[in-house]
């Protein structure tokens, strides 16, 4: 639907006990936008991302996807994918199985179909050489690309990254940027929280500075 925002947050509030983490936050993203959320530690960046990914619930407020209100904890529509800071790859599964686990178990694809479907993203993220390896055999950059591939195989409209550059060598940051722009071209909306202001500003279309207790766009 044209004109509808891919993601809209209205009046989001979140407290832990008496500590207000996020207060009346509003946010709008279009398809293909890249949003950087920057701000000091403890400002609620991670909490906000986790709420969008449905890993925390907001105390109040509304989430909209494509003009329709949605509950991020309801995974049936696969609106949001997530790339964790330490990737959280499943150590007991090969790269291919990490990527195809959800398509097989959640979407009901056969293993073979899931592998065929995964090939495009495996090519795109340059993972062909590692598909049969286990996560412990991968470098940091490879782990991150597997985590991205794993999330993308569920075709989320929005992909969230928690500190995508923190576990990487500086020379790999450029590669991450390339991936961001490639996914943007594919129409994926991306939200990234980062301590790295320069990286955050270079990739972003929009920047959300989260100061203590309050988000201002």
């Amino acid at each position: 639907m044209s004109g509808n925002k891919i993601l809209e947050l209205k009046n989001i509030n979140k407290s832990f006990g008496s500590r207000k983490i996020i207060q009346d936050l509003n946010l709008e993203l279009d398809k293909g936008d890249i949003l950087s959320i920057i701000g000091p530690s403890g400002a609620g960046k991670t909490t906000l991302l986790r709420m969008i990914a449905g890993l925390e619930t907001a105390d109040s407020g509304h989430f909209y996807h494509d003009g329709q209100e949605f509950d991020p904890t309801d995974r049936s529509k696969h609106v949001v994918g997530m790339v964790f800071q330490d990737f959280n790859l499943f150590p007991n599964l090969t790269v291919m199985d990490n990527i195809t686990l959800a398509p097989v178990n959640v979407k009901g694809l056969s293993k073979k179909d899931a592998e065929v479907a995964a090939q495009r993203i495996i090519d795109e993220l340059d993972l062909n050489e590692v598909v049969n390896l286990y996560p412990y055999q991968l470098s940091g950059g490879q782990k991150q690309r597997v985590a991205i591939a794993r999330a993308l195989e569920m075709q989320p409209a929005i992909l969230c990254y928690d500190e995508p550059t923190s576990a990487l060598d500086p020379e790999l940051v450029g590669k991450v940027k390339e991936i961001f722009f490639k996914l943007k071209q594919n129409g994926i909306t991306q939200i990234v929280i980062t301590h790295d202001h320069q990286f955050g500003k270079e990739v972003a279309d929009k920047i959300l500075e989260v100061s203590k207790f309050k988000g201002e766009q």
Partner: protein
Amino acid sequence: MINYIISILPSLFSGAWLTLEIFFWTTVLAIPLGIVVALGLLSKIKPLEVILRFYIWIMRGTPLLLQLIFIFYGLPTIGIVFPRYESALIAFVINYAAYFAEIFRGGLQAIPKGQVEAGQVLGLSSWQRFHRIIQPQLFKIVLPSIGNELINLVKDSSLVYVIGLWDLLRAGNVATARDVSLVPLVLVGILYLVLTGLLTYILGVVEKKYNVWK
């Protein structure tokens, strides 16, 4: 000598068979029960946690021998009667499940929470997360400790002599008393070593299988 050994072997083997039966059923029943108890301990449901803690305290804090005697000789005094074999199984299963539960609880706590969250975001159901992500990692973590307990179990099974079951040790003991010979007890020792040796080998193979990933 050889003839004597051959003459007592059938009785020792029948005792060893009972030992194996108790080992098998205790393993098959107490491991799943231990996982369920461990999940209960971590469920954050306070009353359930209190009950399970109490159960584990009793099971680990009193001798297995007492538990066997309690179930077979004690419970009938209040009208609850189990046959010998069933009494032994009940005692072994609830006793070992308590130890397994503590091992599994530690194992579950060692798995990073992020593993579960990654599964959640991907849309995996809680059963799929447990079955495909948690359980393989859990087994790898607990395997050495569970292996220790299983080797103990082979030897602990000899306690069933106290309620009159014909296990390996009892078979040897009876033959030694009857024939005034050390040979049956030596054979019993050898049979236990074979059983625990075999078990150690199998555990090693399983452990190796889990070693392909870290």
